[in-house]
């Protein structure tokens, strides 16, 4: 049995691992998502949902009396929720869903971390596309050019942070899961648990704590304050702390754990 010492392994890695291996993986994964039915159907269905919502908001007698700011907030919160959920599901499926074909990929001279990074980038590619699709609807519902720009930028920033955090979480779960079903279930369960408090009226110091600690509620509250209450970013900057920390911690954990990617689930040595 041949074994490499640490220095040999480093030499081999440096000599044979292409620096842009992640790019090759990402391109292949992007093709899988966007040239198959998965990405296009999701984006098309999302646009139909926003069309229905926008039309109802403008015509329905009851909804018509909702302030335009609330309608814009609703559209962007839905965009954020769907964008994060789809990225999470794509990343949770990225490794555990390809256990049968993973062997071939692991034999290529691309490091495990680069493989994971390429798959992660493809998984999060859904988010900017959904955000781009939402922009015309927000424009149609806008209450003023200032609010439009502020709302879109705020949603993009919060959504990018949450998408990064949840996609990394999905990748970690996918890496350690043997079963694709388990990976999807665990990832989606975590997402729902963190999303649920946004639909619950939270008050008091404990409610405020949950809002600020949970990255999803913090991001959602940030959008509320910026779009509906028209607060400045400086006034509500503390609400961005949880999403930023979640993104950084999840990315660091993913960088460490995906380096131990194995053909079977679990953690490699």
């Amino acid at each position, binding site marked *: 049995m041949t074994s490499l010492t640490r220095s040999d392994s480093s030499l081999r890695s440096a000599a044979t691992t292409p620096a842009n291996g992640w790019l090759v993986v990402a391109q292949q994964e992007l093709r899988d998502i966007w040239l198959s039915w998965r990405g296009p159907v999701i*984006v098309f269905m999302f646009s139909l949902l926003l069309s229905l919502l926008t039309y109802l908001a403008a*015509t329905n007698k009851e909804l018509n009396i909702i302030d335009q700011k609330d309608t814009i907030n609703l559209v962007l919160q839905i965009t954020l929720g769907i964008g994060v959920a789809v990225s999470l599901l794509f990343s949770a499926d990225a490794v555990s869903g390809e256990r049968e074909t993973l062997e071939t990929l692991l034999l290529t001279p691309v490091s495990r971390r680069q493989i994971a990074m390429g798959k992660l980038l493809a998984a999060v590619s859904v988010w900017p596309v959904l955000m781009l699709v939402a922009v015309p609807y927000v424009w149609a519902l806008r209450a003023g050019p200032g609010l439009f720009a502020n709302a879109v930028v705020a949603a993009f920033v919060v959504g990018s942070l949450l998408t990064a955090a949840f996609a990394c979480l999905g990748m970690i779960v996918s890496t350690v899961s043997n079963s694709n079903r388990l990976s999807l279930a665990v990832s989606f369960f975590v997402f729902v648990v963190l999303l649920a408090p946004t639909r619950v009226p939270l008050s008091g110091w404990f409610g405020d704590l949950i809002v600020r600690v949970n990255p999803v509620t913090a991001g959602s509250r940030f959008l509320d304050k910026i779009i509906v209450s028209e607060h400045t970013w400086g006034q509500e900057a503390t609400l961005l702390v949880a999403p930023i920390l979640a993104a950084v911690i999840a990315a660091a954990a993913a960088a460490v754990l995906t380096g131990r990617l194995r053909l079977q689930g679990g953690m490699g040595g």
Partner: protein
Amino acid sequence: MRRHLWLSPLLTAALIALLLAARAATPAFAQERGGQAFASDVTVSVSLSEVSALTGDTFTFTSEITNSGSEVTPPLIANLDFVALDQSTYIDPEDWSPQRTLVVDPIAAGSSATQSWTVKPVLKGDVAVYVVVLPNSPDLTTAGSLAASAAIHLHVEEHRTLNPGGVLPVVLAVPGVLALAFAGLRVAGKRR
């Protein structure tokens, strides 16, 4: 007991006298608190009597509060109210007018003050719109301290449009463009 029956007419007469004295004293008491005098001295009129509108339309009208008394009024509160005449229209007043309460400065004797109101009917139906004025003081419990205008009869018809708020082009175009773009992408991918 029968010995004192002769006292009954006397007691009855005393009771009636007491009641009459109390009733005579009430206006003075109320006047001190600005009650009856307020209601009789302050009148409210509105600039419209009937309005026909479509849902989502906006119209404005004015109300005029006149002090016909001999003394200056206390600070006043004017409030815009809505009552559904057909019993079936649900009215949430906040949806019908962005500002329903105005504080009016004291009005000198013989003078008047004008207020402007904006109404946006959001549901079809027949609605009475009127303005109520009351003193902005702690004496709100005094009976008769409100002055109300005549009601404006508002008839609202439902406004139907295929392009509400101009959103129809976006609502149709975005899914259409996406469908074409993705179809093109798929064809291009297959050709490669």
